[in-house]
């Protein structure tokens, strides 16, 4: 009898978890998003070299308009590739586990992730508008970190730690303006790959 009750409790617990958290998020998404960021970041380094700007010294904080256009296009391409990889591997994982993708938990996850990111996007656009280029990389890290912390309730709680790392890294990079690209590559590249591998191994 008490065996049955124990099983009942286990069942209740697992149903609560399954219905409120989106568990099909794939670690591979993180790994590929990280690689995309590293390639994009490397491309930006090449761009700087071509324009004869040393990002490390960053004496010329006002960049010319062509370079900024190229940077924005590169950033958008990185975003599109990273998100596509994320969606691709996540959908693949849900199909493999026979779980639906578009559920209330995945909607909650997306909404809670997107809201801080959207606000951060407006914030960074304003920075670009005022030519405060050096603040953009730290801001993207901070807003992305906060978005992950916000979305943690709706998926694996591990992403909370990724969020905290990203947000702190962003704060730290505020003290090293001009080296933002390297912090950005570390945060969006290395940390993504690192946490992607952890998630992948843990929830395979």
């Amino acid at each position: 009898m008490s065996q049955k009750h124990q099983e009942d409790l286990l069942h209740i617990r697992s149903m609560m978890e399954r219905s409120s958290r989106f568990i099909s998020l794939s670690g591979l998404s993180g790994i590929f998003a990280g690689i995309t960021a590293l390639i994009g970041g490397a491309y930006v380094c090449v761009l700087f070299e071509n324009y004869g700007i040393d990002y490390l010294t960053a004496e010329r904080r006002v960049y010319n308009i062509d370079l900024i256009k190229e940077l924005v296009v590169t950033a958008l391409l990185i975003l599109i590739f990273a998100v596509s990889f994320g969606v691709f591997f996540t959908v693949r994982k849900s199909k493999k586990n026979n779980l639906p993708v578009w559920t209330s938990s995945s909607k909650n996850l997306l909404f809670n992730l997107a809201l801080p990111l959207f606000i951060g996007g407006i914030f960074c656009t304003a920075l670009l508008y005022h030519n405060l280029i050096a603040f953009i990389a730290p801001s993207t890290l901070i807003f992305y970190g906060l978005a992950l912390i916000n979305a943690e309730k709706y998926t694996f709680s591990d992403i909370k730690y990724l969020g905290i790392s990203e947000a702190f890294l962003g704060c730290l990079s505020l003290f090293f303006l001009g080296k933002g690209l390297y912090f950005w590559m570390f945060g969006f590249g290395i940390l993504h790959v690192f946490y992607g591998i952890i998630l992948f191994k843990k929830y395979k």
Partner: protein
Amino acid sequence: MGIIDKLNKNFESRVRLGIMSVLIVNDWVDFTEMKALLSITDGNLASHSAALEKSEYIEIKKEFVGKKPKTSYRITNLGRVAFKEHLNYLEKLINAK
């Protein structure tokens, strides 16, 4: 008997426990999602949800999205209280052993 009498007969079935567990942590959940979560058949879900509605533990909403009918479920306050009591009894039973 004592404590055993207090176990809610409504929650004897796994399916009903499942429905209640899902609804206690979510707002409206629709038929297809619930079916997938519990991995049960249409008829099974329909009969158990109807029984829970009869006890006024859940609310059933039927509406049309375009031309398709859509059924969604939500827990009632009575259901929330009853389910929490049931959980407490289960816990007591296990601890009393």
